[in-house]
């Protein structure tokens, strides 16, 4: 091989350097995105995991006439201001539910006040020095400790962070998604079947197609304005209800379901259709007996992804009023309800530090559910993917 002249060699070197530079730039871009993701998860998890634990204090609870009237008197004087006022408020209820308790003294683990909780978790708290000493003593005696925060999952929203949980938001989410699914899935699949298998190529069909593509790109908050003006103000659906939110989300999810269903239908080869026609099936039979069953995994994958997206959506739900303070779980789709993302949003705007923890914990729960749904969709696709 001939040695290149110095000029060419220099040029070549420069070109190779440019090559390496460009490749590094590309890797850098990808690493930036991945680094953000890592930082993001680390940040959310470190902020949220303390909320999965909650300080409990072991103390004697006295159920008596006096403590029903003045719940503060139910617990010993030393811990009186350390246990959660939310727990004390429940004492009359507890007696009412279980009259046998009356006149007895029970040793129980009681939810601590949020300041005690923050102090034991080593964060800044508003406890007086005296109280801090008491808490230290209790902790040493094993009468105050961090336990798994079950009430995070069993309680509804509360103004006291130690009593607040996601239960009512989870129930609201289920109702809302149920409405979304019942409306958007059949309508979406029917639309896709019509466009893909039945529609003649005319103006109306093309209008519907352009429309669906446009709808997919309409900002979600505008669906909120639609829901407010049409469902709530015109049709009189109750504000903040799962029905209003679910219908709004259904219209938003519709384009996603239609587009993915069409792709699934299109992936079924024409030979199947011709085979069905060949044995005398009508068009409807061909679709119902052959094409739809074969494309079902693809349709389900798209629908799961669409529903997962609807589940994380907040903006349109704020507009239709689903940010209300809902301590008790809704009983039906007409009741005022809130959803998990809206709950996260309303917790995020509360000033107490403990609510930031709860917000991050709610986010962890939401992300786990969403990532599971997405993973399920991917698995479903992998499992049933078919090459024709």
């Amino acid at each position, binding site marked *: 091989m001939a040695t290149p002249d110095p000029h060419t060699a220099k040029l070549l070197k420069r070109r190779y350097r440019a090559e390496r530079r460009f490749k590094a730039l590309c890797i850098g871009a990808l690493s930036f995105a991945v680094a953000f993701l890592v930082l993001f998860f680390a940040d959310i998890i470190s902020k949220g995991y303390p909320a999965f634990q909650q300080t409990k204090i072991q103390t004697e609870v006295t159920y008596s006439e006096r403590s029903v009237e003045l719940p503060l008197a139910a617990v010993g004087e030393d811990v009186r201001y350390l246990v959660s006022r939310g727990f004390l408020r429940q004492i009359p209820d507890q007696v009412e539910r279980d009259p046998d308790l009356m006149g007895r003294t029970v040793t129980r683990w009681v939810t601590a006040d949020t300041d005690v909780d923050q102090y034991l978790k080593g964060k800044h708290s508003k406890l007086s020095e005296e109280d801090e000493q008491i808490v230290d003593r209790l902790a040493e005696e094993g009468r105050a400790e961090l336990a798994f925060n079950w009430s995070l999952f069993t309680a509804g929203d509360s103004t006291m962070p130690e009593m607040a949980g996601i239960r009512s938001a989870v129930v609201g989410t289920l109702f809302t998604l149920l409405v979304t699914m019942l409306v958007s899935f059949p309508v979406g699949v029917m639309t896709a079947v019509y466009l893909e298998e039945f529609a003649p190529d005319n103006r109306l069909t093309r209008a519907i197609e352009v429309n669906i593509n*446009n709808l997919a790109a309409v900002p979600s908050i505008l669906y909120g304005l639609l829901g407010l003006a049409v469902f709530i103000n015109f049709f009189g659906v109750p504000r903040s209800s799962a029905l209003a939110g679910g219908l709004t989300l259904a219209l938003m999810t519709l384009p996603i379901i239609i587009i993915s269903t069409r792709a699934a239908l299109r992936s079924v080869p024409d030979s199947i259709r011709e085979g069905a026609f060949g044995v005398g099936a009508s068009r409807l039979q061909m679709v119902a007996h052959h094409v739809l069953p074969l494309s079902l995994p693809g349709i389900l994958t798209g629908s799961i992804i669409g529903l997962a997206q609807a589940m994380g959506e907040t903006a349109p739900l704020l507009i239709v009023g689903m940010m209300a303070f809902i301590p008790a779980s809704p009983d039906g789709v007409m009741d005022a309800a809130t959803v998990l*993302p809206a709950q996260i949003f309303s917790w995020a705007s509360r000033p107490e530090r403990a609510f930031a923890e709860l917000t991050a914990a709610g986010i962890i729960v939401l992300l786990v559910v969403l990532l599971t749904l997405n993973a399920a969709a991917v698995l479903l696709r992998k499992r049933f993917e078919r090459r024709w």
Partner: protein
Amino acid sequence: MTSGQAALLFFGGLFPLMALAYMLGRRRVLAQEATAPLHSRPGFYGWYAVVWLALPALVVALGATLLQLLGLASPPAPMTLTASLLVAAGGLALALRTLRPSLRARNIVEGVARWLLLAASLVSILTTLGIVLSILFEAIRFFQTVSIWEFLTGTTWSPDTAFLGGAGREGGESAQFGSVPLFAGTFMITAIAMVVALPVGLLSAIYMSEYAPKRVRAAAKPTLEVLAGIPTVVYGFFAAITVSPLVVQLAGYVGLDASHSNALAPGVVMGVMIIPFVSSLSDDVISAIPHSLREGSFALGATTSETIKQVLLPAALPGVIAAFILAASRALGETMIVVMAAGLRPNLTANPLEDMTTVTVRIVDALTGDQEFDSPQTLSAFGLGLMLFIVTLVLNMISMYVVRRFHEKYD
């Protein structure tokens, strides 16, 4: 009985009745099978009965609902319910009487099914119409009190004084609805987002399609897609709680003064949110370029990066531009991140470290307050929504046009 309960009873009753009708129709025709051969499969006769049962009932129920909504008449719910069920029973009786083996049940049922499918696909048109009309009507009411010209060119947005004025408090200045600072804030945050998303998304896509070994690509693609699956409220929390203080701190190191609700934090986070969008669209475009183009370039002695810069990118440009425009329209309409991390104060400035507000923030603010629905403050949300709709629609149209106009034909 509320209309909700009536609706529940109606649908709760309709489905068992439909099952019953199916069985009756099917059995009736099978009993007659001996007299003549069936035209259709027996199930179609069942469906024929179902159609005769359900369609009249639905028509009556929908008609009554419509009458009530339009305020023409308000039949009590129990009456509507009874009437629709009676009609259903009548329809079923009629269907059973007309059932004969020679009836072309399949053709009738399939005709109805086809109409149903068409009706379903009209829902998307109705949705668009609903969005346009509902926003337009309320916006018109808004523009009756505020001139469009002032709305489009005014540089002061202070709707709150309208509320005070409405409450009978004198002395405050009249409300001003100049949307320029809102749109300036929106475009500023969108621009920051695009500065992040475009290079990162595009270069990631290039790396994944041109450089990466198969295994890296198989891992990197779903990882990027996780970014797209994170709800915006979560990004908003992250931007407000983690990124904003970081920006303030970093600005402090270099001696700059950053507001706590600066525009940079939501912009950057929004950019990250859009990365998978840009990268997957660019990836599609780049991998659609045929291999012969790359091979031709390599054969001339070009390096990979030269091939990318001088062959692939020019070929992919229309698609990339379309992706870029779509991403920008998504950023313009993004709500939760800016609601949580950007400010509420309309601020006409070019400094991304200052706080500024966006169109979507003001929409949410106007509709989550305690104002009555008819106040100009509340209606302003629809004026802003209309503008947002028009801007994003135009961007989508441009993007579709670019794709169609510059679509490369390689063969």
